[in-house]
């Protein structure tokens, strides 16, 4: 029965995408498909945290942004002279900060409780802060002053961008470990609030640390894992193929590039899905669900609940980080201002809950369905507003206001969908197998 349901829903989804391809354009359809695939991977990551373990992460945006940062640091060509001028200073400053935090933690653990411990920890933190600022400040300033209009940042390592996907996962995993270490074991609200906080801070860092990400000047023109349209249009085998399909090579090249991306993303999705399914079916997965369903009894059985939660939280965040790096790869640019919590955190949540928490196929379906409607709701909303206001005069203030505000209806619709699904169908479209 569930298998039939799986097939039915995914067939409907495929038909919807085909419909967009036939009636709107193949370009639009493939763009939606690519983002659906990335959303599905992100939803898988959140499903690992929420569906397997019941952890409420409100900082998905931050982990996705760390993936984007990894894409810049790995793939962009290094900037001439930036490393000599300030690269080592910037790294040294950061390293010093990390060392002083580690030293403070070490002191906290090793010294006896008392006045002296407090004083030494405070002293280590203050000295560490000023010392690292002293090295870090001039170094970043030097980097930012190199040709600020065009570069003004450190650049990356110039490696193939696909390598940044696992690196993005690593970054997100480290951030998740720190947050999880602090908040897991306390009540569930604290994890939610702390992840909300860390994601805002990660975005703030991306926006303001120009030496690393160029800040709001954005990093553009990132290298691609797939061929460029312009090169394709002059390649012989491509022109032959285009002729064979009987299409215009310029239009076909952009479709071809999107298909290449889709291929890469599908491979990634299948890898992540296979790993998640294997994990879910393993004894480890059963243990996670046992902990989720009854923490007290799992604890009594000798399971270390906090440790397992930390593990699953890091794993889920790694998947979100990978998806974040893939998203930046697809965009070909890192624009810190485009990271909005509603789009990156709460939309992904709705995907997981609508799709069916605890079921990996459900998370994927949710990613497809919600992203599809998120994109297609805009023209539909505008159409609706035009119909509603058609009786009003052309320059009526109310009419213009309603049409301009149609975009905000999406937020409300998403909220209502979330509330309705949570109440009337809390198990989602594809419920977890029991």
């Amino acid at each position, binding site marked *: 029965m569930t298998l039939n349901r799986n097939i039915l829903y995914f067939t409907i989804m495929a038909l919807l995408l085909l419909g967009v391809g036939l009636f709107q354009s193949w370009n639009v359809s493939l763009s939606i498909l690519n983002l659906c695939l990335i959303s599905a991977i992100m939803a898988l990551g959140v499903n690992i945290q929420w569906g397997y373990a*019941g952890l*409420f992460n*409100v900082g998905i945006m931050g982990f996705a942004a760390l993936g984007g940062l990894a894409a810049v640091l790995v793939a962009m060509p290094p900037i001439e002279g930036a490393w000599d001028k300030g690269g080592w200073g910037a790294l040294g400053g950061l390293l010093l900060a990390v060392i002083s935090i580690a030293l403070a933690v070490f002191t906290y653990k090793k010294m006896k409780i008392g006045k002296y411990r407090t004083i030494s920890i405070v002293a280590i933190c203050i000295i560490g802060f000023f010392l690292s600022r002293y090295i870090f*400040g001039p170094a970043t300033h030097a980097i930012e002053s190199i040709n600020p209009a065009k570069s003004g940042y450190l650049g990356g390592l110039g490696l193939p961008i696909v390598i940044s996907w696992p690196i993005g996962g690593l970054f997100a995993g480290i951030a998740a470990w720190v947050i999880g270490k*602090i*908040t897991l074991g*306390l*009540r*569930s*609200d*604290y994890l*939610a*609030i*702390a992840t*909300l*906080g*860390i994601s*805002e*801070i990660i975005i*703030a860092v991306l*926006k*303001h640390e120009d030496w690393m990400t160029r800040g709001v000047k954005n990093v553009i023109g990132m290298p691609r894992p797939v061929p460029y349209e312009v090169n394709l249009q002059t390649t012989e085998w491509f022109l032959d193929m285009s002729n064979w399909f009987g299409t215009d090579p310029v239009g076909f090249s952009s479709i071809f590039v999107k298909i290449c991306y889709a291929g890469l993303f599908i491979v990634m999705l299948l890898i992540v899905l296979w790993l998640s399914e294997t994990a879910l079916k393993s004894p480890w997965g059963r243990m996670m669900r046992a902990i989720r369903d009854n923490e007290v009894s799992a604890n009594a059985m000798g399971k270390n609940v906090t440790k397992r939660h930390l593990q699953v939280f890091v794993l889920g965040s790694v998947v979100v980080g990978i998806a974040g790096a893939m998203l930046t790869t697809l965009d070909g640019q890192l624009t810190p201002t485009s990271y909005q*919590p*509603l789009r990156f955190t*709460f939309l992904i*949540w709705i995907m997981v*809950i609508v799709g069916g928490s605890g079921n990996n196929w459900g998370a994927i379906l949710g990613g497809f369905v919600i992203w599809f409607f998120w994109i297609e709701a805009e023209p539909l909303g505008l159409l609706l507003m035009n119909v509603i206001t058609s009786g009003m005069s052309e320059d009526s203030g109310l009419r213009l206001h309603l049409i*301009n*505000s149609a975009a*905000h*209806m*999406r*937020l*409300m*619709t*998403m*909220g*209502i969908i*979330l*509330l309705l699904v*949570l*109440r009337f169908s809390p198990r989602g479209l594809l419920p977890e197998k029991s």
Partner: protein
Amino acid sequence: MEDLLNAFFLMSNFVFVPAIAYGSQLALGAVGVTLVYGILRFSNFAHGDIMAFGTMVVILFTWLFQSYGINLGPLPTAILALPFGIIATAIFLLGSDKFVYKFYREKKAIPVTYLIASVGIMFVLNGIVRFIIGPNDQRFADGERFIIKAKAMKQYLGTAEGVSIKVSQGLTVITAVIVVMALFWFLNKTRTGKSMRAFSDNEDLALLSGISPDKVVSVTWILVAILATIAGTLYGLDKSFKPFTYFMLLLPIFASAIVGGLGNPLGAIAGGFVIAFSEIMITYPYKKFVAYIVPGDWKPDGLVQLLATDYKFAVSFIILVLVLLFKPTGIFAGKSV
């Protein structure tokens, strides 16, 4: 001597007075969060947007009154519009409780379900506010701008720096004091208030002794509407109204409530001031201040700023993390687990 006076005035203008005003706004917000936590037992993610919704209604009524030419002279017209904002917010919150939260309460759902439901409410409010008033900045302060003007003070005292206090800052502090006093009177002296505290301390015992849970919950939401609308309006008068800023206020408000101990209103007020003072003192550039207090011509080259203003949210986050690490129940004992 004069330099020291100048330095003191400078600090007063840019650190103490703004921090007291901001702290009062955070405190009012945090008390709202803490009340919901104490009675309904979840962290209300919609609180920032509830503030935005209340403020939006206040702004709309302010514009209406302004168009009729009604005003309060030196005070902002928004005060007149405040009751309407509170009523609209209370109606919305009671409605959201009836249609959303009540179902989960009767089912005795786990706390995280409420959390997700509050995220849903947040979305809806976000949509409503942006749909009606738009995502942009709105200024709605009118009346006098200053209680004490810097220029007049400079002439009077003959110092380089003057002292200035904005009407919105004075108004914020006075209103906050009145609201907090009224709230504590209500919680400690009235029958309903006492039953609320009993409910917060021990739900089962309170139910056994015949306290009606529906009444307690409704009164809580009305109190939240009052607190959130007042906090939001004061913040909007002091700075400006922008829906996204109100969403972002969620982090400092949560931090205040947790620092003070979740579920403890007195702690939430203290937490609000802790967060506000740290945020402003850590991000204030002390360049001019240092120039006044050090002898001779020695002046710092940099801004003498501990942390760039862009990272002000990091301050509340770091304080939050420290509290969670060392004292998860908050400074004043609240509920932790």
